[in-house]
């Protein structure tokens, strides 16, 4: 009973991580290149978003036609619809940190590489460590 959700989590994480690596989103220079609208703009990140949103939109459409997911009793859809100051302030702070270093929380735990190369473990996971620690 508890094995299926774990396997689903593992497969999902593997696919998600493979996508981040393949798309180049584990590279801060690609992320900052996308944010650098007035400089040497690299639109790649927009293509990642389009691909990911397209596939997930189809899955969400399909999910709404099911009464329950395959290995859980119910879908847990986020319920909030309000756009409040906390949402906008938080997103602005996230964008500030994202633009400074080029890491967002997804690629951060995916990124073990530089740690081994530079020997600075604290420099590698700004996203995950602070996300978890805050």
């Amino acid at each position, binding site marked *: 009973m508890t094995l299926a959700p774990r396997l689903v989590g593992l497969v999902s994480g593997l696919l998600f991580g493979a996508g981040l690596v393949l*798309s180049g989103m584990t590279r801060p220079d690609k992320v900052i290149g996308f944010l650098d609208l007035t400089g040497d703009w690299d639109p790649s990140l927009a293509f990642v978003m389009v691909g990911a949103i397209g596939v997930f939109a189809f899955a969400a459409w399909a999910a709404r036609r099911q009464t329950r997911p395959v290995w859980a009793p119910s879908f847990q859809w986020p319920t909030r619809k309000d756009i409040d100051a906390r949402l906008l302030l938080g997103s602005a*702070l996230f964008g*500030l940190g994202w633009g400074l270093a080029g890491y967002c929380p997804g690629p951060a735990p995916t990124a073990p590489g530089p740690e081994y190369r530079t020997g600075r473990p604290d420099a590698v996971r700004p996203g995950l460590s602070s996300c978890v620690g*805050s």
Partner: protein
Amino acid sequence: MADFTPVPALLGGLLVGAGASVLLLGIGRIAGICGIASGLLDAPRDPDRGWRATFLAGLLLAGLAGNAWLPGAFPAPSAPLPVLLVAGVLVGVGTRLANGCTSGHGVCGIGRGSVRSLAATCTFIAAGMLTVWIARQVRV
């Protein structure tokens, strides 16, 4: 456009979407990385601990595989250490306040048609672009 890579970006995006879809159709959950990571620490005895831990393990394994097979996938961070640390705190506090980041709001939220998530995504992309622009003015 020095480094525009539309094909791997689109293919990688499809994989990211597939991963999020597996989680939704399999166990009815939203693949928000920050929520999953912080949920793991906030509620260590939660019954959701299992799939959250294996999801993060999957991310890490994919990263290790990428590091082995795709040279250049993980360049050393270019920003100096103090900047990285400040950025990390901002990312952590910001995504906590906003209840989501690029994955939860950007991919899953917009994918399921949430206006709230669209507002969050537009805000963090705009703030990121403004930050990079200001950083450029300061450096030059």
